[in-house]
């Protein structure tokens, strides 16, 4: 009878075989092996090639990728060492051997840009290891991925050190921005822009600007295959995560006119850290669900959250945040999924899955809706205004884009109609009304009445923008002005117009009409009242308008 073997090991208690060759230690070793090609690629792309191409002559620049990785590893190792020493832990080195302290530091170095200052990396590694791993109880007890914790800290606290430093010496001269930045700012046209700079295969291999070691989707795929073969990770999370993002970006692409083009989605999933995150970060056994169904749910949510963050927020890179967010829910997802497997009540299973499905679809739809193109307003400029002398309505002409649009308003300046139906929307009307308000008529004919042989015109004139209109009622008989009454109450003077005016000069409304009637053939000769020049001029202007109208009628 064989005795039960109790395996005293650290979480995750993943038992691949009874063979001593398997276990957590072996998994971590395989993990590191899978990272090696990416590190080498990063060194070649960011360090060796620029050196060879003579874009940089500094040996430090060439070695920088390797140095960053080494420093990251060393820092996180030292952090754990110091922590355990301070705690009075016996057999510190023994503990460190099973705690794999270097991994968060290495991962952090790989997802930070080439130009990150060393001190920023150090701070990030310390922060990530301490707050992401040690305070929770060390290896196997952490809730969050420590590398991502450090990454979030560094990108939030030292943004100014990260953002400008993405480009390695070669890219400095050729590239403008990283593909992710371009895609983030412009959904519709970002992809063609990127594809014109870099052919799709280049993006796949990773020869584009980006963080240190995360750009190569190809090498991540290779690593994925290796890790799957070695049974280090489960296929569900990476595959479903990437597939979800693929599907969602395909839908977005369809909305933006790329329906038949897979290139849109492919560009999206190959750029940035998606592959790297899906293969190395999301699959970390300690922080992701254990049950297969749980993994599926986890990966679905990761996918929709990444798309949501990429499209709805100003972050170009949604991967780190969505993984950290889902790390919070790992336990819940696990309990949910495990419970569902053994649930006796089928209905409960269906309802739960339905809720999960709805959540996934809802978040996905919300993310996608951000990328649906919105109405873009063209520029509207004022062109001219004229009064329609038949209807006495106002006719404004605006130039919108290339076209001229005529807007007709009543005398109250309310829009009655817009000549071009495409610009007859609320937004455009608002814009027209705003411009109309700035270009009011300084004088217009309000109405015309015909009484027998007399034509009575009511003319409104005003001096300047802030003032009220002055109403003049002018009666024409046989083409000559026979009566003129003016109502200057709207002028905000009281009886003393300005200090140059005296009572003896007389009010314009009493004096000017007489002078106008007397001089109606030569209005320039009409003398304004001293000290009340402007008011007088308004009345003369009214007469001019009226006479011009009458003459136009005669023709």
């Amino acid at each position, binding site marked *: 009878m064989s005795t039960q073997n109790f395996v005293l090991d650290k979480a995750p208690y993943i038992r691949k075989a009874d063979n001593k060759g398997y276990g957590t230690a072996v998994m971590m070793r395989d993990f590191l092996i899978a990272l090696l090609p990416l590190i080498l690629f990063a060194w070649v792309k960011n360090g060796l090639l620029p050196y060879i191409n003579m874009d940089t002559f500094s040996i430090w620049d060439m070695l920088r990728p390797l140095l960053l990785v080494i420093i990251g590893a060393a820092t996180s190792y030292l952090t754990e060492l110091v922590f355990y020493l301070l705690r009075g832990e016996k057999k510190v080195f023994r503990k460190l051997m099973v705690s794999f302290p270097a991994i968060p530091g290495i991962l952090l170095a790989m997802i930070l840009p080439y130009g990150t200052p060393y001190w920023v990396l150090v701070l990030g590694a310390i922060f990530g290891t301490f707050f992401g791993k040690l305070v929770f109880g060390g290896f196997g007890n952490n809730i969050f991925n420590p590398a991502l914790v450090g990454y979030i800290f560094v990108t939030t606290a030292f943004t100014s050190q990260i953002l400008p430093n993405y480009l390695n010496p070669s890219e400095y001269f050729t590239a403008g921005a990283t593909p992710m930045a371009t895609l983030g700012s412009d959904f519709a046209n970002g992809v063609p822009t990127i594809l014109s700079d870099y052919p799709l295969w280049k993006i796949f291999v990773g020869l584009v600007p980006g963080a240190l070691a995360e750009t190569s989707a190809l090498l991540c795929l290779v690593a994925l295959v290796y890790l799957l073969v070695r049974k280090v990770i489960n296929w569900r999370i990476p595959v479903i995560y990437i597939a979800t993002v693929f599907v969602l970006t395909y839908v977005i692409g369809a909305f933006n006119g790329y329906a038949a083009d897979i290139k849109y989605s492919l560009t999206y999933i190959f750029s940035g850290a998606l592959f790297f995150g899906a293969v190395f970060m999301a699959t970390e056994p300690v922080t992701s669900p254990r049950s297969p169904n749980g993994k599926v749910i986890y990966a679905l949510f990761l996918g929709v959250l990444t798309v949501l963050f990429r499209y709805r927020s100003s972050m170009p890179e949604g991967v780190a945040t969505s993984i950290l967010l889902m790390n919070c829910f790992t336990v819940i997802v696990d309990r949910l999924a495990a419970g569902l497997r053994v649930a006796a009540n089928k209905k409960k299973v269906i309802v739960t899955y339905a809720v999960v499905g709805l959540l996934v679809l809802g978040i996905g739809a919300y993310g996608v809706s951000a990328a649906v193109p919105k109405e873009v307003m063209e520029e509207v400029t004022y062109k001219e205004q004229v009064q329609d002398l038949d209807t006495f309505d106002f006719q404004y002409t605006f130039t919108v884009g290339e076209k001229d649009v005529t807007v007709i308003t009543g005398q109250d300046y309310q829009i009655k109609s817009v000549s071009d139906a495409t610009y007859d929307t609320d937004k455009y009307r608002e814009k027209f009304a705003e411009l109309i308000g700035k270009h009011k008529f300084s004088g217009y004919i309000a109405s015309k009445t015909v009484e027998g042989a007399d034509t009575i015109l009511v003319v409104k004139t005003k001096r300047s923008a*802030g003032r009220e209109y002055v109403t003049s009622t002018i009666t024409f008989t046989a083409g000559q002005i026979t009566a003129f009454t003016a109502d200057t109450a709207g002028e*905000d*003077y*009281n009886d*003393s117009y*300005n*200090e*140059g005016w005296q009572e003896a000069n007389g009010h314009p409304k009493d004096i000017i009409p007489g002078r106008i009637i007397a001089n109606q053939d030569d209005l320039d000769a009409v003398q304004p009242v001293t*000290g009340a*020049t402007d008011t007088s001029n308004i009345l003369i202007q009214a007469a001019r308008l009226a006479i011009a109208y009458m003459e136009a009628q005669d023709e």
Partner: protein
Amino acid sequence: MNKSIFKYALLLVAICAISGLLLAGVNMITAPIIGSRNQINEKLEQYYPYAYYKQADDGSNEVAENAIQAYYYAFDENKNLAAVIYQTSFLGFKSQIVALISIKVDGTVENAKMIGGKDDYSLSDHDFEIAGESVDSYDYTPKSGATKTSGGVGAGIDAAINHFKSIKDSLGGVSYEG
């Protein structure tokens, strides 16, 4: 049962009354200070919007005639001194014309506005064509047709500019706190 509720209610009312009296007393002391500060802010904000204002502690006299009545420091959102605003009162056509003149710290006049005065000519719509002029070289032209009234503003501008020149060098020490 009734008696105790009555007793509780009475006690509560008594305590609330006492604290109400106490609060009223403190309010009497502090409300005027707050009120006058808000008044100044509102008045200045109407014409020259800035983030913060502080009245210069200068023995100013709100009813002085033919003089600078008060001047204020205006600060932007970062609490940096942005302008000095003068309230002046000089004789116009038939009454004292009160004007607000704002001079930026670099020595350019921001604007001059008439805010009070019993002359019948209201100048508030007109700028005095002084915006942007430097204190070292400006040429104020009165508004035609309203010479005397705008002269009241002009004298105010003169006084403001002279005062500004005299305090120009010590402006670095002005801060919003204290």
